[in-house]
């Protein structure tokens, strides 16, 4: 980071507002008699700094997510998050390759050139059909055919797609190198911008980084448009309402920052414990945490 002149910053863990993402559960706390939240990532605060200073920034910070616990998840973990002004997600991926390459060199781990795959291509290859014709039903039939369990109840297409990738694609990823997945369906854009690909699919300009089937990073060519941001937040609020989830306080500072002018930039977050898992060959996150949640 020093070599590339990326400035280290520090932002609050405790905030008056929270992410509206229906799949992220912020811990709610009472601070000074007011309901507040512990951040699930430093993204919003870092974007406010980006809007104010238009400069490359990074930090390593603990983040907290309720209802996430398993071999690869602990409710509290460390995140390395950084933003590069003027880069798109492709350029950011190139720069991550260099960073990860130097980490591997430092750990004397053999380095193999990472692969890049498009989410949409991966889905089409498994199901042998066009992305436009994929439905939850079709995915469910594929699970049945392969004799794998598909959850019952109302499963959204995005959830079904993710489960398809997790069940049939990730286990096939090369386990001696990184694989970048890019070009997600536009419905999974979160805070990334969207684009139209060569086949006419609306895609999200975002990526995830895997080593074998272990996800270690998630990055976006960041959405800068305040109106689209407002719209996505509104959709999240509605989804939360429909699913009976906690109606969190919306971060108006983030919307103001977009309004004031977020620079064209790309950002990424790396899970530090996940990186340690793959560097040490640990198969459970508990092996790289001194006090996992149950003993914290």
């Amino acid at each position, binding site marked *: 980071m020093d070599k590339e002149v990326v400035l280290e910053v520090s932002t609050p863990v405790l905030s008056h507002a929270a992410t509206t993402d229906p799949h992220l559960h912020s811990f709610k706390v009472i601070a000074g008699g007011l309901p507040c939240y512990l951040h699930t990532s430093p993204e919003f605060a870092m974007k406010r700094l980006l809007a104010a200073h238009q400069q490359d920034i990074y930090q390593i910070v603990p983040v907290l997510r309720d*209802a996430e616990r398993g071999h690869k998840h602990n409710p509290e973990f460390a995140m390395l998050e950084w933003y590069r002004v003027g880069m798109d997600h492709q350029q950011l991926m190139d720069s991550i390759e260099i960073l990860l390459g130097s980490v591997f060199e430092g750990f004397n781990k053999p380095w193999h050139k990472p692969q890049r795959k498009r989410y949409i291509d991966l889905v089409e290859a498994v199901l042998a059909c066009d992305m436009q014709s994929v439905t939850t039903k079709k995915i469910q039939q594929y699970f049945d055919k392969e004799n794998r369990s598909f959850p019952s109840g109302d499963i959204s297409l995005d959830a079904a797609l993710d489960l398809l990738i997790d069940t049939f694609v990730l286990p096939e990823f090369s386990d001696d190198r990184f694989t970048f997945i890019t070009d997600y369906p536009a419905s999974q854009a979160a805070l990334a911008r969207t684009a139209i690909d060569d086949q006419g699919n609306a895609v999200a300009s975002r990526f995830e980084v895997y080593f074998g089937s272990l996800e270690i990073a998630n990055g976006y060519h960041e959405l800068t448009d305040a109106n689209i941001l407002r719209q996505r937040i509104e959709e999240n609020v509605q989804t939360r309402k429909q699913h009976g989830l906690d109606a969190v306080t919306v971060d108006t500072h983030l919307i103001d920052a977009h309004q004031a002018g977020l620079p064209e930039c790309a950002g990424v977050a790396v899970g530090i414990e996940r990186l340690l898992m793959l560097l040490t060959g640990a198969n459970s996150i508990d092996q790289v945490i001194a006090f996992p949640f149950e003993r914290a």
Partner: protein
Amino acid sequence: MASFSTNEFKGGLKIMLDGDPHSIVENEFVKPGKGQAFSRTKVRNLKTGRVVERTFKSGESVEAADVMDTEMQYLYNDGEHWHFMNPTTFEQLGADKTAMGDAHLWLQEEAICEVTLFNGQPLAVSPPNFVELVIKETDPGLRGDTATGGNKPAHMETGAVVKVPLFIEEGEKIKIDTRSGEYVSRVK
């Protein structure tokens, strides 16, 4: 009706699936992508013993199975049911052929067994890990042959057939490990 949310899932938890009691063997929290999280489990059907994969949406609730293991004393077999008694409450219950499995091959009266109850009825019966039984019938022993290994089938008083060393005689009492069905030692 008691139920468990997926975030309470852990190995050994008993839940109802498709009308049958199941025990969770493995539970993995999966959060593919940035969306919906799931619990991918392996569950054992306690009636059939079959282990299958079941994936649940995270936060989904599943009905708890009223299953418990109790130590009970074997009393007698009436030709259809094997009757057991709870030594504390003196309550008696009959286990059918399905619940008994092969357990009846090892049972002497008064043996203490682990009986798995589902809705208060016997679902499965495990005999004691070790039993001491008398040999009803086996080929004549080879006297003095205590070292060369080799074995022969012996029919026990309870119906089981166990491979015993050649020197063991009819009418002798032996100790058997019921989990493997193997001879352990002579009982003097």
